[in-house]
């Protein structure tokens, strides 16, 4: 089996195990049909945009990293959707999506200013380096999101457990 195929299988197993862990530890919530439709539209739209940006980035020499810009937009959309109800304290409530979006957006624009940062890390292709960077940021954002979620829920548990029957 080739390396990329093994990575794909490994990622799929990891995704399945993570999903299983979250279902067991935090339970499952079924969205309303309206929410499910909206999520599907957002997912399909950003999937099409991601493929388009990848094709564009490999076919043309662009002054910016287009997949990075699309990913930043998707994360910004996720941030906006998650924080609509707490706009007054949005950044403190869900900081990881906001900062991940901002960092990826800034790094995507660096080539525009002649900054070839990927060469410093030994990458020849900007796209390859950007994909690795995106993966790293998403992984760190995921860890931060997990810590925030478990802390928030634990605090709620401590606060609410004294409610009388």
């Amino acid at each position, binding site marked *: 089996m080739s390396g990329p195929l093994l990575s794909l299988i490994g990622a799929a197993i990891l995704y399945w195990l993570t999903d299983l862990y979250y279902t067991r530890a935090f*339970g*499952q*919530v079924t969205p309303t049909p309206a929410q499910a439709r909206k999520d599907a539209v957002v997912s399909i739209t950003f999937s099409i945009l991601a493929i388009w940006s990848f094709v564009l980035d490999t076919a043309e020499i662009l002054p910016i990293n287009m997949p990075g810009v699309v990913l930043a937009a998707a994360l910004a959309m996720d941030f906006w959707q998650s924080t609509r109800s707490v706009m007054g304290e949005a950044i403190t409530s869900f900081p990881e999506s906001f900062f991940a979006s901002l960092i990826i957006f800034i790094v995507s624009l660096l080539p525009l200013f002649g900054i070839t940062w990927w060469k410093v890390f030994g990458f020849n292709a900007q796209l390859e380096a950007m994909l690795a960077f995106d993966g790293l940021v998403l992984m760190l954002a995921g860890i931060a999101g997990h810590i925030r979620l478990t802390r928030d829920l634990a605090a709620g548990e401590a606060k609410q457990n004294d409610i009388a029957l």
Partner: protein
Amino acid sequence: MTSPFEELANLDKLVHEPARLAILTALSACESADFTALRRLTGLSDGNLSVQLSKLEEAGLVKVQKQFVGKKPNTRIQISAKGLEAVQRHWDRLNAIRKNAEEWKDSTPEE
């Protein structure tokens, strides 16, 4: 106009109790949720959540469905149309009371 204190005293106690209001509010934002998700969201203990769900089910505000997912028992809870109406009406009333309380405070002469 009734005072905000009378309105507060007349609130539907079945819905207004903090644990039950938390459960109904959480359920009103989704199609359904399982027991674990509700426990995590509301921060209630297993026993307290069970008791509150039984009361809400008896009143017809939620539907509780027990099933097996694989070999594990799973309890799914869904808000009923009556429950959705009750929680929305309750939040509307609380907002109105809050407004009324602010007006009452402004109209009270300072000593």
